[in-house]
């Protein structure tokens, strides 16, 4: 029986490339949880921005390929070693994707604008000093600058450009990233959102967010920013309460 997601023992590695960790697993769990919706969604183009070891894009391909044939998968990473590792991981699992070494989606954004149906991103989200952002090597996998938002805030406009009308974004965040602010920003661009997975580890409080375009949801429900933020906090508290029961 073929595996539904990538197998850790087949994931390639390199000292300068981030190995799959709790955040990667949480993102894949979110995709697994949403698998039925994804299949029904029938995406034609799926993309991972910042593929690192290739664990997430490989898992996405494996969990869709039997039910959704004929999808164009792409992966980018800014680390030239990570793109090689991603390719090796894909190959080890017998699946294919087009991998490009790019800063977010440089070189691809013009031609792919409005075409991508699913984007998955596990960004560098750790709050760090600004000078650490964009450093070469493995630090680029986690260094997120002030509130861990510097790279996230660069990625989101690119995602908005790339996503098709029916496009979905899955984004890994920490509560320290002020995810409610991210959701509010995206709401102003016409995206609804929800928390797909919430996971607390020893060091991190992870939230996997899902975004989709929904002008009806966003414009007809006239809602002020403070109210939106309050709703978000309430949803998050409820989610966390559920876990403790």
């Amino acid at each position, binding site marked *: 029986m073929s595996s539904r997601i990538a197998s*850790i023992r087949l994931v390639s590695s390199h000292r300068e490339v981030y190995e799959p960790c709790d955040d990667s697993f949480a993102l894949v769990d979110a995709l697994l949880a949403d698998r039925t919706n994804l299949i029904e969604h029938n995406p034609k183009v799926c993309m991972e921005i910042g593929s690192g070891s290739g664990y997430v894009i490989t898992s996405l391909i494996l969990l869709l390929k039997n039910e959704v044939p004929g999808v*164009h998968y*792409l992966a980018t990473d800014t680390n030239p070693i990570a793109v090689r590792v991603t390719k090796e991981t894909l190959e*080890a699992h017998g699946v294919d994707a087009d991998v490009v070494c790019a800063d977010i989606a440089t070189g*691809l954004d013009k031609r792919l604008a409005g075409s991508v149906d699913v984007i998955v991103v596990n960004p560098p989200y750790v709050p760090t000093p600004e000078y650490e952002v964009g450093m070469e090597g493995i630090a680029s996998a*986690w260094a997120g600058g002030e509130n861990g938002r510097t790279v996230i805030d660069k990625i989101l406009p690119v995602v908005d450009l790339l996503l098709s009308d029916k496009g979905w974004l899955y984004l890994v965040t920490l509560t320290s990233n002020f995810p409610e602010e991210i959701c509010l920003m995206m709401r102003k661009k016409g995206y609804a959102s929800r928390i797909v997975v919430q996971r607390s580890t020893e060091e991190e409080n992870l939230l996997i967010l899902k975004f989709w375009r929904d002008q009806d949801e966003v414009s007809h429900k006239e809602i002020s920013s403070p109210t939106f933020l309050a709703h978000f906090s309430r949803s998050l508290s409820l989610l966390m309460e559920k876990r403790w029961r």
Partner: protein
Amino acid sequence: MSIRVLKSSATKTHLRLPRCERAREREKMRLIVHNMLSCNIRGVVNKFPLRIEPEKVIVKEVDFNPDFLKHMIAKIDWKALVDGARSMGYPELPDHPPTTLESDESFLRKFHHSLLELNLEEGSLVCPETGRKFSVNKGIPNMLLHEDEV
């Protein structure tokens, strides 16, 4: 400051078994992605398509999926595909796609071969306006810009 730790917890330190020996060649840069790549240098107007300077091209078989191909026809820049295929050693594509695809399997097969089976392993992609070369190594195009190009 929380640091993302590369933890070696019990669930993650499996002994890495040797990777499966693959009979097939590795995935390389295909024309489907070449058709999506343009030069991102600031100020460049004529940024697509990138000219291909191949050094190593291999052919790798991919399952034929007519539905996928019919979907892709609308998204593909045809001239870029024809020129790209030619530069990779495959001149069989017609200058224009036929008006009715359904009945033309021979065309779909040529389209399939060009789009998905021609692989650039080593070479360069050249900006039509500036001549700047983006290298392709082990099948991966490197589109990263230098600081002065951003």
